[in-house]
């Protein structure tokens, strides 16, 4: 795992609010589908660190603001169309998480048949890692590895991701390393 320069992290609160942009979204996924995926993505991180995430309806005042943007969208990091760059986010305590609206985002890869479909939950989980202060990992199996193939799903945090997040925030008191490692071993065996 790796951190951003200076190891920035959220210090203002142990509960962070997040919201989806009501304007910058994609029209082929319902709001409830996107919200469900985003909620699951946050829950994966909150299971391992003592940080809670709650959804807010107040987009502008939320700590973490998520939206789907196309091309140049005002932050100097233009998106590039289908595939290529999928998303980006900002280090703490900025809170912006941007997804490229040009991608074919999937919430269910069994239903979404596009060859260039990108799993939304995998990418959101990765970008939340950046929002929390993790940079890219060299561990291919880690959520924080920088690339993701079309139609691939990588949502389960690996020990590299967990250790990185816990180095910044400490461990969630309910987190059980032994059972996590057993679960990771079963994933490795299946792979």
């Amino acid at each position, binding site marked *: *795992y*790796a*951190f*951003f*320069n200076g190891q920035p992290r959220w210090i203002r609160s142990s509960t962070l609010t997040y919201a989806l942009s009501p304007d910058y979204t994609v029209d082929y996924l319902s709001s409830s589908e996107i919200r469900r995926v985003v909620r699951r993505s946050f829950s994966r991180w909150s299971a391992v660190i003592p940080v809670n995430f709650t959804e807010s309806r107040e987009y502008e005042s939320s700590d973490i603001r998520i939206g789907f943007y196309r091309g140049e969208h005002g932050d100097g*990091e233009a*998106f590039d169309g289908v*595939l*290529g*760059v*999928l*998303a*980006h*986010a900002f280090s703490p305590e900025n809170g912006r998480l941007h997804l490229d609206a040009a991608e074919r985002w999937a919430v269910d890869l069994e239903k979404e048949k596009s060859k260039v479909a*990108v799993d939304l939950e995998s*990418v959101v989980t*990765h*970008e939340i890692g*950046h929002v929390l202060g993790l*940079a*890219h990992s*060299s*561990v*291919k199996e880690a959520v924080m*590895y*920088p*690339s*993701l*193939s*079309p139609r691939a799903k990588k949502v389960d945090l690996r020990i*590299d991701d967990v*250790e*990185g997040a816990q*180095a910044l925030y400490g461990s969630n008191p309910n987190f059980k390393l032994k059972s996590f490692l057993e679960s990771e071993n079963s994933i490795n065996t299946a792979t």
Partner: protein
Amino acid sequence: RNFARFLDAGKGSEVTGMSELKKYLNRFGYLPSSDTDFTDFFDDQFVSALILYQKRLGLPVTGNLDSDTISSIISPRCGMSDVVKINRSTAELHSTRR
């Protein structure tokens, strides 16, 4: 789109499109903007950047544009830089690895 031509490229060669790969490596933190020659020449600086890229992404470290490296470059990815600070001599120091 035509990456096959890069497979035979080696240090000292000139390949059309190499400058785009340099821009890619620059964007993700492997080549500094200040002193990079964004031409189509496969130069020493490009080799160093490739080696750093291969190390950081867990690829076989060859310093060449082999198929693993090209596959990685064409994979969809996050837009955040891989190397937090664009300073190749100290870049690895900004990572904390077990």
